[in-house]
Structure formats: structure tokens, C-alpha cells
């Protein structure tokens, strides 16, 4: 019973946080562009509108199951990320998982959805998937290297153990291992599908993207999982670098400040092409990561 309630609470919390954060992001970017922008609930309305569409086109069973796989992947990811530390609540199944598993779970869903995109038979969709996989190839290397620096620092892959090791603000990995944070920051933004690395989805203006054939309720499912996944990733970084949180309010505050940072970076830069993205990730964050490895692993004084 506890497990089920806990799981439902995590799913609900990540969804609510998801649309509020996205609503805030749209409001924030509107203000940056000197507009009024939509209300903070706008993403909720959009999502509900799609979930309540009366017609949904399907291109066959695989096309239908793709969004289901991606949603199941998002829920699984949410349930394997511990939301709070030193608490019985909002833990999900995180004790049965670890950091590497979570990093891989983040891509299970998108790959499942890629099958659906392929089975729709629309070449534009497949182009989008290829772009996505290419970007993934670019971002995953520095992202994982940054996380590996943290795993090496604490000699564990357990998110719980890493969280527990950061007692006070001085022990936050953000401060004890700043290089790792700098290495993962930009790939993290890319993994959130945010500007300037958002050419894959390009929500409004590019015809060719993974979602080209999705409409109606299936698109609603895709939006829902996207919001939940965003929160799962934010909470993961909060757990790893900002010492986790002991209650929901601290969690929201920390996640929000991180979100603010990434949103500010996102809004300041124009979009990169896919190959520019990959090249950038392999040069700048990865280069920084290599320097970090040399400084903290190869030379004993850094450790």
C-alpha cells in the first residue's frame, strides 16, 4: 500500500511540477522577448486539450505502442529517482536502481518512440529521430563523464549514497566537484530538449521532427511524459549536485533554481544545428571533462 501511494505521489508530483515549470518557462521566455506570455497553467491546458481530443489517428499497432512505451519509460524513470533523502516517502523503487541505470532509463522511452515514428512511415519523422540519436551521441559522452567523476568521487553508483554524503551546503558536489557540474550542465540542457540544442523537436517551426505524425491523444501522452521526464532529470541533478532535499518545498526550491539557471542559459543562445551541437559537445564539455579527469584522477593532489 505504501509503495503504491508513494509511486502515485511521485508521478503526480512530477506531473504537477512539470507543467508548472514549463508554464513558468513560457512566461519567462515571453518576458525576455518583451511579451506578456501565456498563463502559468498554459502547459496544463495544452496537455489536457490533447488528451481530450475526440479523434486520434493511428498508423498501426507499433505506432500506438510507441507513446505508451515512452510514457512507461518516463514513469519508470521517475520511480527510480529518489525525490527526497532521509525519508520514507517519494522514494519509489530507487533502492533497486542506481545512477547508471537511471541514465540508461532516460533513453529507453525515446528509443521506444523512435519505433513508432518509424512505423508511421513518414520520412520526416525518421529524420527527426536520426537527429535526436545524433544529438544523444554528442551529449551522452560528456554527461556521463561528468556523472562518472561524481561516482568516482563517492565510489558508488547509488544515488542514495551520493545524496547522503552531501550533508551541508559545503559538501554539495556543486562545490566539492565543480568541474563535474560544469561538464554536465550543457549536456543536461540538451537532454532537456531545451534551446540552444532543441533542433530535434523544434516544437513550432520545423516540420521534420519525431512528432510529425503524432496528433490527438497520442501527442497528449508524449507531452505528459516529456514534462515528467524533465522533472525526473532535474531532481536527479539536484540529488547529485545539490545535496538532495529533505522535504518537498526544499526540493521544489532547489529544482526551481536549477531550472532557472538552465532556462536563463537556454534563452540567451540561438539554436545550433545538429552537427554543430555534437561537435560542440565533443569539444567544449568533453574537453573540460578530460581536463577534469586529468586534474582529479591522474594527479593525486586533486582528489
Amino acid at each position, binding site marked *: 500500500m505504501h509503495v503504491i501511494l508513494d509511486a502515485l505521489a511521485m508521478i503526480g508530483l512530477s506531473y504537477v511540477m512539470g507543467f508548472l515549470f514549463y508554464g513558468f518557462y513560457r512566461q519567462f521566455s515571453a518576458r525576455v522577448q518583451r511579451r*506578456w506570455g*501565456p498563463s502559468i497553467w*498554459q502547459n496544463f491546458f495544452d496537455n489536457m486539450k490533447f488528451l*481530450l481530443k475526440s*479523434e486520434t*489517428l493511428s498508423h498501426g499497432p507499433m505506432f500506438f505502442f510507441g507513446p505508451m512505451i515512452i510514457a512507461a519509460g518516463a514513469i519508470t524513470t521517475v520511480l527510480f529517482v529518489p525525490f527526497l533523502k532521509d525519508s520514507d516517502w517519494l522514494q519509489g523503487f530507487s533502492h533497486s536502481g542506481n545512477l547508471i541505470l537511471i541514465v540508461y532509463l532516460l533513453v529507453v522511452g525515446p528509443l521506444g518512440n523512435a519505433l513508432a515514428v518509424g512505423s508511421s512511415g513518414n520520412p520526416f519523422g525518421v529524420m527527426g529521430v536520426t537527429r535526436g540519436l545524433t544529438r544523444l551521441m554528442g551529449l551522452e559522452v560528456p554527461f556521463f563523464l561528468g556523472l562518472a567523476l561524481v561516482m568516482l568521487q563517492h565510489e558508488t553508483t547509488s544515488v542514495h549514497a551520493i545524496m547522503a554524503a552531501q550533508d551541508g551546503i559545503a559538501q554539495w558536489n556543486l562545490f566539492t566537484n565543480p568541474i563535474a557540474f560544469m561538464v554536465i550542465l550543457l549536456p543536461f540542457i540538451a537532454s532537456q530538449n531545451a534551446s540552444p540544442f532543441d533542433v530535434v523537436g523544434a516544437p513550432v*517551426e520545423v*516540420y521534420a521532427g519525431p512528432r*510529425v*505524425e503524432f496528433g490527438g491523444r497520442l501527442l497528449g501522452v508524449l507531452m505528459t511524459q516529456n514534462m515528467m521526464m524533465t522533472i525526473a532529470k532535474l531532481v536527479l541533478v539536484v540529488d547529485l549536485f545539490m545535496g538532495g532535499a529533505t522535504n518537498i518545498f526544499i526540493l521544489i526550491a532547489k529544482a526551481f533554481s536549477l531550472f532557472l539557471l538552465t532556462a536563463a542559459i537556454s534563452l540567451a543562445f540561438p539554436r545550433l544545428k545538429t552537427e554543430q551541437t555534437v561537435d560542440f559537445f565533443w569539444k567544449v564539455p568533453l574537453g573540460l571533462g578530460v581536463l577534469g579527469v586529468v586534474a582529479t584522477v591522474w594527479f593525486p593532489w586533486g582528489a
Partner: protein
Amino acid sequence: MYHNNHCEGFQCEQRMLEASLGEEGGELGVLDRLVAWMRQRSLFVLAYGTGCGAIEMRPLMTSRFDAERFGIIGAATPRQADVLVISGYLAVKTLKRVIRSYEQMQEPKYVIALGSCAINGGMYWDSYNTIKQVDHYIPVDMYVTGCMPRPEALIEGFAALQEKIKRGEPGGFQRYRENIDWYKGNQRRVLGDNMPPDYTYDWYHAGGTA
């Protein structure tokens, strides 16, 4: 109608249109009203930029008029869109694409016809290859008159459409579904052999539930 002092020009026309829309919202249940409210609050627009009206869509979406504050935002593909904006005149050639795009949208879906050309041919009233009345080929939910209407007028049109959706009135898509033979007959008259393949509308004939 045109001789009152609390409105002028297109505003009056808009009022007239809105006034004739009927007051049927009261019959809706709580759930339906909620659904209708959600729907009107979020409209994804497929801007079909064929005519000169397309130029009015850019200021509408960008910082000055900022349609996003009403939940109106562009959509990349017809599958994701709720509203098709026909911006200006339609040639026979573009009519085919408009029909195709409209049929690919997922219900509930709405059409806004922008400018006089889309209503009655406007200045192209005697042109040999311009569609005079778009309403004969796809169902139009809201007209915005003018040549060209300014973005404010367009916003008025969207607001009126939102009102209409909120009241839960039957949208044009229902008219299209019920009178599919009439619409297809009209389309066939202009397009002739150039009609889109049967599979694009067959399901309408099968009661729309195929």
C-alpha cells in the same frame, strides 16, 4: 446594425457573427463544459500562408500582439493543429493542399478564413482560378473580414472562436462530416481529376467511425 455608437467597422461585423451564434452552452454537463473550456484555452494554429494575409500572422505571433497570451501558438504539422487559418485568397492549386491539410487535422478542428478573398473572392471576384467561397469546400468556423484585416481583428476573430468553443457549439468539422458528399461534390467540381486519393476521405463516408 451599422448605426450604433459602441462599435464600428469589423467590430460590428464580429458582434453580428457572435450574436447569431446562439446560446446553447447551458445544455452542457459539467464535464463537457470543462472539456470545452480546456479546448478553447489552447489553440494550436496551422497557418496556411497562401495569400497576402500570411503577412498578418507574423505580428500576431510575435512580441507586439503576442497571441500566445491567449494560448494561441503555432503548430508545425496539421496533425498537431486545432485551427487552420486560411490567410487570404486560395487558388485552385492551393485548395487541394488546404483540403488535404484540413482532413489531416484531428477533431475537434476549426477553420478561420482571413480576409475578404476567402469569404467571397474579394478583389479576385472575377478571377478564373481563384476560389470564391471557401465555405463551399471546407467548413469555415469564423470569418475575419478586411483586406487585409489587422492583427487586432485577427485576435478578435480568435477570441470569438474561443467563445464559440467554450459554449460547446457544434464546430464546422461536424458540418463537414455530416455533409461530406456536398463538400466533396463541390471540391470535385473545381479540382476535377486532381482530387486527392479516395483514402483521404473514405472514412467520412463510413460514418466517420472507421
